[in-house]
């Protein structure tokens, strides 16, 4: 007699089974750890589980790249790792162009545009070595380089450019930026391939023709010609196996984790030649605190867009440096002038005058930015810093304007009322997940309450907010905090032109003949000296009407590990000099280990 009888049978029956089960449970992660097929040669691994298109295309790229001689020199070598919060959602598919990071990788790493910008934002040759306009300004002829090849060895020709134009303007493609070419003649009428390296476009004369060809990367005709336009957006080319012609060749993408590119050894010397880095890696790290930790521990060399308070920390840290540079974005509140309390421009002006924007800028952005007064950011040649003098912070002036507009403060009251007894109450909506916009709304609430305006901040999830403010019938908002990245070519017609009052982005609903005239002229006056007074007046008129309260133009920030040299950034973007980044040999180490 050894043990109690009631326990024994249970133990025997369960014993082996339990052991096995436990063993399986314990082994399960080990099986996953070892069995994910993440090892081995990256080139072979990259082909596993890829769509047929990619399995055909990638080996051709590898075969061609293997025939090329790598450059040698002191600066050549090493791997740089860039970390950012957002995934490159559109990858290298120029027909789906939407997010900033994808666009940057398209234009500066993997693909090429016809022209590019120099530091002073003048147009420089890139894929096109020269161009000329017809005397009446209705045609442009580009002469392309003849030494640029796609990464699979096929030459890049005028047929690729024509293909890109025809697909991007095909309604079936649903290319979001098709409006680039709204003044072009349609389809084959608009484009003529004169020979393999010469192409001509026809259009109604308009300003900033070249900017379109700065923004739109050229796509390879020989790979995508047979794809139906409607399928281009979701074609595997974009995120599984892009084949470009730029300084970096696509190597591998780990979904949700990273993209790797390697040097293109045959990138033309005249355009800067092959990049110094052996390898460039883009890592997605969705949480900003983690990204900072990775920058501090050498997991990434470059942190794109840290928060302003993180930027202060980066500045203090040895071995890191902070870059801050002009950007194309601004933060604003759009006022719905269809609402009776916001119909009077004096009220909208008073709202702007009642907000201490400099204080908000210093508090929220740690001073990394400048107060905005009209939507022409500081990078733009026609930016007028004086436009701000007319809406400086002035609570007394604001109160007087409100009195004049009929909104008076009763003795002892806290909210202004009009003659009919309506209270000056304004709801301001913003979207979840954006601390900066929430802060803006709340500081506004505090500051405007001092002049008798009751602001009610309301938070909504993004897609819901977009539907409430963009639906031309609903326009269910008084004010809304928004922010965005403008194009280099500022075009506010969708925001303010009265012809678009029933279009989604005409949030303010203001209609002003002078503004219409200015907006139209700005798009067609090609000479900058002739256009300057128009831009000047446009900014003044925007200040007078105050359809939006412009808050600030934030500066763009980046944290960089000092081991990477040659990193320069400006309004053109973080990646503008990526081909010139280099790492001194002593600092190279193994990738990702700093």
């Amino acid at each position, binding site marked *: 007699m050894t043990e109690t009888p009631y326990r024994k049978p249970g133990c025997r029956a369960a014993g082996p089974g339990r052991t096995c089960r436990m063993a399986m449970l314990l082994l399960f992660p080990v099986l996953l750890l070892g069995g994910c097929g993440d090892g081995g040669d990256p080139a072979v691994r990259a082909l596993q589980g890829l769509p047929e298109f990619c399995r055909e295309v990638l080996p051709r790229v590898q075969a061609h790249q293997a025939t090329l001689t790598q450059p040698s020199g002191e600066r050549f070598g090493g791997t740089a790792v860039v970390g950012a919060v957002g995934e490159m959602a559109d990858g290298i598919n120029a027909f789906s162009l939407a997010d900033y990071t994808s666009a940057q990788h398209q234009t500066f790493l993997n693909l090429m545009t016809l022209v590019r910008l120099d530091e002073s934002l003048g147009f420089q040759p890139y894929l096109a070595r020269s161009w000329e306009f017809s005397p009446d300004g209705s045609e442009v002829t580009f002469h392309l380089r003849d030494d640029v090849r796609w990464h699979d060895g096929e030459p890049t020709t005028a047929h690729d450019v024509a293909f890109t134009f025809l697909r991007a303007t095909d309604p079936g493609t649903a290319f979001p930026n098709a409006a680039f070419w709204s003044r072009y003649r349609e389809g084959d009428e608009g484009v003529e391939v004169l020979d393999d390296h010469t192409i001509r476009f026809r259009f109604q004369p308009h300003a900033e023709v070249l900017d379109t060809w700065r923004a739109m990367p050229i796509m390879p005709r020989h790979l995508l010609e047979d794809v139906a336009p409607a399928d281009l957006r*979701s074609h595997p080319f974009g995120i599984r196996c892009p084949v470009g012609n730029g300084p970096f060749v696509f190597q591998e993408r780990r979904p*949700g984790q990273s993209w790797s590119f390697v040097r293109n050894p045959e990138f033309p010397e005249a355009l800067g030649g092959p990049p110094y880095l052996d390898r460039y890696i883009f890592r*997605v790290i969705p949480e900003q605190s983690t990204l900072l930790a990775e920058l501090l521990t050498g997991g990434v060399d470059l942190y794109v867009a840290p928060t302003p308070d993180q930027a202060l920390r980066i500045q203090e840290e040895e071995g890191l440096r902070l870059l801050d540079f002009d950007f194309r974005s601004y933060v604003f509140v759009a006022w719905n002038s269809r609402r009776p309390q916001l119909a009077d421009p004096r009220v909208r002006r008073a709202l702007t005058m009642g907000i201490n924007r400099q204080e908000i800028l210093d508090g929220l952005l740690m001073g990394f930015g400048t107060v905005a007064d009209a939507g022409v950011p500081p990078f733009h040649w026609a930016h007028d810093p004086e436009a701000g003098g007319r809406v400086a912070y002035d609570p007394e002036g604001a109160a007087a304007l409100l009195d004049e507009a009929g909104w008076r403060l009763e003795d002892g009251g806290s909210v202004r009322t009009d003659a009919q007894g309506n209270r000056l109450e304004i709801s301001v909506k913003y979207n979840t997940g954006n601390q900066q916009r929430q802060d803006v709304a709340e500081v506004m609430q505090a500051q405007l309450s001092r002049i008798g305006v009751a602001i009610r901040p309301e938070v909504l999830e993004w897609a819901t907010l977009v539907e409430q403010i963009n639906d031309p019938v609903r326009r269910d908002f008084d004010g809304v905090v928004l922010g965005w990245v403008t194009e280099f070519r500022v075009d506010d017609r969708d925001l303010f032109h009265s012809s678009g009052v029933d279009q989604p982005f005409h949030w303010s609903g203001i209609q002003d003949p002078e503004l219409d005239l200015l907006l139209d002229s700005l798009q067609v006056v090609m000479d900058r000296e002739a256009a300057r007074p128009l831009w000047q007046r446009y900014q003044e008129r925007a200040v007078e009407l105050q359809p939006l309260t412009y808050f600030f133009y934030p500066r763009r920030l980046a944290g960089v590990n000092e081991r990477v040299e040659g990193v320069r950034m400006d309004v053109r973007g973080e990646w503008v000099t990526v081909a010139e980044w280099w790492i001194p040999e002593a600092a190279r180490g193994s990738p*990702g*280990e700093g």
Partner: protein
Amino acid sequence: MAVFLLRRLLLAIPMVLGVATLVFLVLEVAPGDATARYAAPGVAPEALEQMRRNMGLDRPAGERYLRWMGAMLRGDFGVSLSRNEPVREVLAQTLPNTLLLSATALILAFGGGILLGTLQAVRAGGVVDRGISITTLLFYSMPSFWLALMLILVFSVQARNVWDWPFWFPASGMVSLDHGFLGSREQILDRIRHLTLPSVSLALVLAAGIARYMRASLLEVLSLDWVRTARAKGIPEWRVVVEHAMRNALGPVATLFGLYLPVLFSGTVVIETVFAWPGMGKLMVDSIFQRDTPVVLAAAFLFALLVIVGNLVADLLHALLDPRIRPAARAR
């Protein structure tokens, strides 16, 4: 037993379909669609309209639902609207990562929790018991987001940069960038290094809860008459606890397994974001915000399936541990 299993599995079918249908309805009612992220000044409404047609979003909801259901029953989850690739691919890229993370966390949580709870019960009222009680209560009430960031601060940033420890843990990612060039042993070590912080931050919170359950359950068992009998027979104390009492105390803890699965999956949403772990939790949240219906539906479907299977496993475990349950199931 087989009949019991079969019944449970058959019951799971309407449940999973019900969950998917409910999710579809909720997404249908939510404003906005997958083209919202393209909407910006300069983008023509016609382009967005065409995009909707290309995505099939112009069809009536009923038609889309039936099409989706039909395709799904044939194993086709459709194409993701925000990621430009088939949903099957998207899930294949993320599901194994989430399973690896949550399975590791589960093992750590139950292993650690049971061990701690047992220690506490054996030393009930003593210093060890109180010390563990306070510590587990602390972890139990900690937001996992904050805990994760603290772990990164201590075991990644401070350990490497300030204290110069010989070992430190990477703050994010699943593998090092040079993973492909490592030997196979180094590869497994590399994976374990990356897995440590995320799985520990998930497990700590759960383990704290499990320890409390284990302590209570074991204390109750230890006070029963047959334990006194066992002790009276002169069986060494550790055998009384480990072989006799623990086995009986584990029953209630096993049911926690089923309860904690959904908690674990919702926990991965936060942990995957903090540690840049490319898993289903983050995928699900991103897809909801982008109104990527096909991905959300497929992910909800899989999560529902996992939870149902997890509950089934919990029931089986319970039955294995407690003989009184088994005959009842067998009798049917």
